[in-house]
């Protein structure tokens, strides 16, 4: 069983977000880029745990993006993935997904495991797009994933409870919090990552039908109204009459 883990590159969780080029591009000055945390902490780490438990033979990272993103891919190799593929292109989520689907199909992967969404675009679309392209089933928002041969057991948080699901490979699964814990790469992993295979593949043709018109940083809130700790009744009054939320 081979696992393919798609990873996105995103600004660090603490990054201040601003824009350039008439507000059509992220201002990358001073921004540290990382692997999308949902892809790294939950999907990649769970894939590695499955390999360590003898349930998977191989864990491959796949990333769609320019050569400049290879440092981010190497970080995923340092955490423990066996090898990596970079599709040398860029486009909307449909472009990214169709390229990942194409690679998975041609290289006989059984499980595609990715984060539930990116913290940059928050679209939660890539997993469903890949599954639709491959005509596989798709299980989103998994918090637990067990593999036994061809059989999969999963849990999903939904509707104020936990849904237990069983399924058979091949599958696309998106990972949410709970599936695994973040791993910090050690020195040995970082050294090994330098020589692990990172294959560059030309993209398959696919049109992007989505273009950015403009980005805008979110407006902040009005100044906070401070209330004395001895006067909580005032807060209740304000929530009722001014904010009108109770």
């Amino acid at each position, binding site marked *: 069983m081979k696992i393919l883990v798609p990873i996105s590159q995103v*600004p660090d*969780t*603490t990054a201040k*977000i601003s824009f350039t080029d008439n507000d059509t591009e992220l201002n990358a000055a001073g921004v540290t880029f990382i692997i999308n*945390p949902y892809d790294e*902490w939950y999907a990649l780490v769970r894939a590695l745990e499955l390999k360590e438990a003898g349930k998977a033979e191989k864990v491959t990272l796949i990333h769609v993006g320019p050569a400049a993103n290879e440092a981010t891919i190497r970080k995923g190799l340092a955490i423990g993935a066996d090898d990596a593929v970079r599709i040398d292109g860029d486009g*909307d*989520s*449909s472009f990214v997904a169709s390229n990942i689907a194409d690679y998975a199909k041609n290289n006989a992967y059984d499980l595609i495991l990715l984060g539930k969404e990116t*913290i940059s675009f*928050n*679209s*939660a679309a890539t997993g*469903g*797009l890949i*599954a*639709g392209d491959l005509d*596989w*089933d*798709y*299980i*989103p928002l998994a*918090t637990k994933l067990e593999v036994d041969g061809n059989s999969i057991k999963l849990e*999903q*948080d939904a*509707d*104020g*409870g*936990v*849904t*237990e*699901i*069983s*399924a058979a490979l091949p599958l696309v699964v998106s990972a949410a*919090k*709970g599936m695994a814990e973040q791993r910090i790469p050690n020195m040995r992993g970082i050294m090994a990552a330098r020589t692990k295979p990172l294959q560059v593949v030309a993209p398959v043709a696919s049109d992007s*039908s*989505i*273009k*950015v*018109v*403009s*980005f*805008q*940083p*979110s407006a*902040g*809130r009005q100044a*906070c*109204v*401070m209330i004395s*700790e001895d006067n*909580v009744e005032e*807060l*209740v009054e*304000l*929530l009722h009459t001014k*904010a009108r*939320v*109770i």
Partner: protein
Amino acid sequence: MSIVVYIEPHKGKVKKASLEAVSYAANIAQQTGTSVTAVTFNIPQDCISDIGNAGADKILNVEGDIYSNTSSIKTIANAVTDVVKAEQATVIVFPFDGSGQAVAPYVAAKEKAGIIAGASEFPKINGDTLEIKKNVYSGKASAVYAINSSVKVISVLPNSVPLANVGKTPEVAAFQPSKTVSSSVKLDNFKINDDVAHGGVPIPDAELVVSGGRGLKGPENWGLVEDLAHVLGAATACSRPVADSDWRPHHEHVGQTGLAIRPNLYIAIGISGAIQHLAGVNGSKTIVVINNDPEAPFFKSADYGIVGDAFKIVPKLTEALKNFKAKQ
């Protein structure tokens, strides 16, 4: 030609997020002179007026037990795709919620459609191009995208657009998909969370949320949060350190790497307001922060703040809300 909108099957009810998606579809239909066809699964008779009220002209109801008992996105998406073909739809609208969030991209792939997930405002239409606004960078920014594929898939962020109230009486017809696509995916069991079993509200659906952080010092003090939530009829949530130290289950973690929520009221107790936490709650309409540190960054992103000892303030606030509720 019509706009097709997906109604999430949900325990014999229609969630507000699905009705908002119908209103979104109706807005596009009105701008383009087309009509709205809602695709439903085993819809109960008493839900039809709500769907019409939100703006649907027609309902195509897919029948069959398989659709009520499946967790297979593939099975559902194939049925939706058949409706899209039958209706020659050029725009397909979903709620960005529950199964809609997952079925939308699946259908987009099948239809070779561009997709905008999480639209936060009604679109601007210029000929064949739709301009759509959505939140990006976990609420730190918004973006306007232009989408020009011949078929377009849009999912609508819950609690973002007004519900229409047009009182239409939709024509209802049974719809038979060309084939039932079987799947290996089986729903084995559903375990309801203790708090929800005892009448609590699931966090993503909650209009009021009370949340606790490290400032509460330990799980033994969680009653403070629960008592306040109980008086309000609110859901309880927590910050990442609280979930990671297992004071509370992971599904209660709100923040950039947990759950993103947009309630009407978010009360944060003993949470400093790190940028990662704010990314999960900055869509809340009103934010109240209670913290003993006047320098806590959360006060800069809050509407109302109280500086002081949560162990004294929260019981007083709970009491004040009890008195307020008693007078209502």
